[in-house]
């Protein structure tokens, strides 16, 4: 499984979105998130975006006040994941218009929806922004 989890975390270390592609108990999730956030948020701009943690490799990137952290297994291509993060942010940008932490907080369902369009089972299945956003736009129109 390529991608094993996706986290969005703000500067204070609060999780704003968490999507796991393997089953972990609530307790395991909380510990894992705590460890990762501590490790990654302590790093500065002059340090690279890859961190090894337990059996995961964490590829992360900071956009404004939000950290996007993706846990992948060791075989995954780090740069591709960075591109994936960028694509995710661009897609959200297009939908929300300059996406910020609050957008994701108040539209968590939509954010999950976008992720579901892009990733299934830890595999990236869709990379076209139009395709990703099509169902959401339909939904918005309907409601």
């Amino acid at each position, binding site marked *: *499984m*390529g991608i094993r989890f996706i986290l969005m975390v703000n500067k204070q270390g*609060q*999780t*704003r*979105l*968490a*999507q796991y*592609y393997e*089953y972990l*108990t*609530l307790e395991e*999730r*909380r510990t894992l998130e705590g460890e990762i956030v501590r490790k990654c948020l302590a*790093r500065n701009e*002059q*340090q*690279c*975006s*890859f*961190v*090894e943690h337990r059996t995961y490799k964490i590829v992360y990137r900071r956009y404004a006040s939000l950290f996007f952290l993706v846990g992948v297994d060791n*075989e995954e*291509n*780090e*740069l*591709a994941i*960075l*591109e994936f993060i960028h694509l995710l942010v661009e897609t959200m940008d297009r939908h929300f218009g300059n996406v910020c932490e609050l957008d994701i*907080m*108040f539209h*968590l*369902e939509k954010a*999950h*929806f976008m992720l*579901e369009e892009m990733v*299934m*089972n*830890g*595999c*990236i*299945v*869709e*990379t076209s922004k139009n*395709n990703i956003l099509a*169902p959401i736009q*339909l*939904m918005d129109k*309907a*409601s």
Partner: protein
Amino acid sequence: MSGNGGPSLMDSLFQRTLEDLIKGIRLHLPGAGQSSFISKSLDEIRREIKSTDLQTKSTAVQKLTYLHSLHGVDMSWAAFHAVELTSSPLFIYKKTGYLAASLSFRPSTDVLLLLTNQLRKDLSSTNQHEVSLALECLSVICTPDLARDLTPDIFTLLTCGKMFIRKKSIACLLMIFGQYPDAVRVCFKRLVENLESSDNAQTLAATVGVFCELASKEPRSYLPLAPEFYRILVESRNNWVLIKVLKIFMHLAKLEPRLAKKVVEPICDHMKRSEAKSLVFECVRTIVSSFYEYEFAVKLAVAKIREFLLDSDLNLRYLGLQGLLLVAPSHLWAVLENKEVVIKSLSDVDQNIKLEALRLVMSMVSDNNVVEICRVLIGYALKSDPEFCNEILRSMLSTCSRNVYEIIIDFDWYVSLLGEMARIPHCQNGEEIEYQLIDIGMRVKDVRPELVRVGRDLLIDPALLGNPFIHRILSAAAWVSGEYVQFSRKPFEIMEALLQPRTNLLPPSIRSVYIHSMFKVLSFCLHSFLLPEKGVNTSLSNFDDIEPGFTYSESEQEFTEPDHATRSSTFQKSDTFMLESIDNVLTQLITSLTPLADNHDVEIQERVRNVLGLAQLAQQEISCHHDLKEKMVDKVNLKTSIIINIINDALLEDFGPIPFSAQERVPIPDGLVLEENLSKLDSICADVRLPKSESFCLIKPVLLPTDGDSNSNQQNEEESGTAVESTSLLAEHRKRHGLFYLPSNDKKIASSSFPPANDPNQRDNDVEDLVKLTEESLVLKRKPNLSRPRPVVVKLDEGDRHPITVKKTDENEDLISGAVRDVLLGTEASLHSNISSSRRKGKSHSKVNMENSETGNSSKRRSKHRDHGKNVEDRDENSEKGKKKSVGRHKARRRADGDGVVVVQKPIIPDFLL
């Protein structure tokens, strides 16, 4: 309080929305305020969720999902409500229900069964978005039962005309296969068809993704599909897809070397042409890990790595270092070409980059340059933060000790390096250094004088006692100084060091090592005093003139003497001085140890009493003769002398490493039946419990609890020391079982001009320095002028501590395929346990047959739209069959495994690409 009452109209009317909830949480500061707000909201949710009004219920589930996913609130109790929502005809509620399910359900959730029907209904819905919801949810929460029940529905969707649906059902397959392997037989063909239909890019990404995952687990089954992957590699312009295909080839190439010839060219093309760094890096990684035999490809890859290394982007630099690390085993020149960058990276701000650089530097180490590299690294360790400093020390220790110190030629240098490491302020590798100091002492005889010198330097430094991290090292130093005290220039000095007051900072286990070492030093001093060897001591003058840093010639000279002579030859004193100093030592010993005689730690107490007993006896007798300074001729007849003689004989025996299997090699004597009668014996002496080998129980494995050999040595050693009676037993034992101890090696000593191990003047550590030295030692392969050959290192043929094999690239193939097989067997076993195997077996047999007969059809069907290949057709048909066969066989093996019978079948690898 809230759980019982049903939701009132008021609740529905004035229900907090999700937005209200989020705002509320934001208003409260994290901590008590927030959590009480959350629990208040939970109470509301519990009430609202029971509402018959779907709007109210949906909002409640929405809020609960939010709390669950971001605030870790348990929502397993609400699983049923989520299922209820999924059955709503309104898409918006259905969506909420499915999201809640996919975020919170676990394999054990009991309402999962209730969801099966709803999922089936939605999977066959005409609304593609409903189908998509169901697929997404299924891909997360799938269980073996769900997978079994829904496989037919997924099978139908695999040919769905809407790409939106088809790609999701393909991605979902991976989960289905994982949960319910029998689904492979049903769906695999359609999956392959999706791989072959090159017309739509949308499904291709999903299909390749699934194959990449499958191939990473068990590549062999997918070899027959190589032509399809090759076509994608050449034709596809989608970088995501290409990366996955490259990964598949990385796995396949290990099984089928002939693939490489065909694939290397297109990979190099991508590497040259592509703008996308991710793709370029994937090409590099594929080449250097799977196609490293192709010189031109590796050259190109290394050139790309160099571009990465010189890039301003940190991420690329990090990956460049990783790439180098992958090349290093097969093409060390690549590392050497980039060594400036590597060494510069050692002082990078980023910890991760530093670590990679360190790994690379260690990969460059050989017996020619280990001295220089370690010198530079020690310099870096002193400058670095504690964490990295220890990382450096750790890798130095493990590299140098690999394969029984394979790369170490100059052990004197290495031992003093170990001593130096102990003095690095952040050093936390005490355990490993301790192990190596003792291990080297036992294995390498020639190094013992230097070892004792290093030990002495560590022991006499009172500052070191304050650092708990190096207590273990001090323990080794104490043991070494006691065990090899005959090489010491000043045994009294060691005694003083062992007695210094700050030793009370040591933990009891280490203190007892100290005390036992005192015992050895004392008995050595007494022995040399009372029973001096005649004839050897003429050449040396009063040893007080000799500095600790002295020349090596003497110790070497001593070394050529037989062992018992060595014992005393270093210790040259005029009798009068000896008498005074012996007296002093005894007094000092008795004064400082007497308070310890009542120590609470039995270990310390017992040993102290042993030492005191000997010391008091000696003091008595020696002071009796104090007046008769000149008449010491009768020394030999003193009681002390007799005892000392016995003790010394016991201590004299050299302990070598013992292989773990030594015990097994003891033949069982004729007529001894080991297993008989023991049960009876147990019942007979049920109440007369014999204290089983108490002497062993009492003596804790002080020095090296992790290590078998030295431990037993240590114990033997201690026994012999503490109990004089046991000496004869030990000697007896030795005589009888001498063959199980390693023969002590004959000592061959070469010239004595030994360079000082660590010249303080050479301690500057410039980058250029290391660059230059690696250049010298690696590029020119110039052997340093060795002033002496490598000393004998006692090695055991088996059972040594780290049986580390240096991973050579040619071994990689075996290792990895072996591992893959293991993983496969492992996962299959677990998968199998989920399925009631015996019943299904008969069924699946017939299924395989059916499939095989179907293969013909499918390839015919395909031939309609696949006529662009020149003569691909025939080969393709073969490959199709081959693949089916191998899949069938794969299944067969699976079943066989389940029954515990492994059917070994030779893989048939068709010649597709040649």
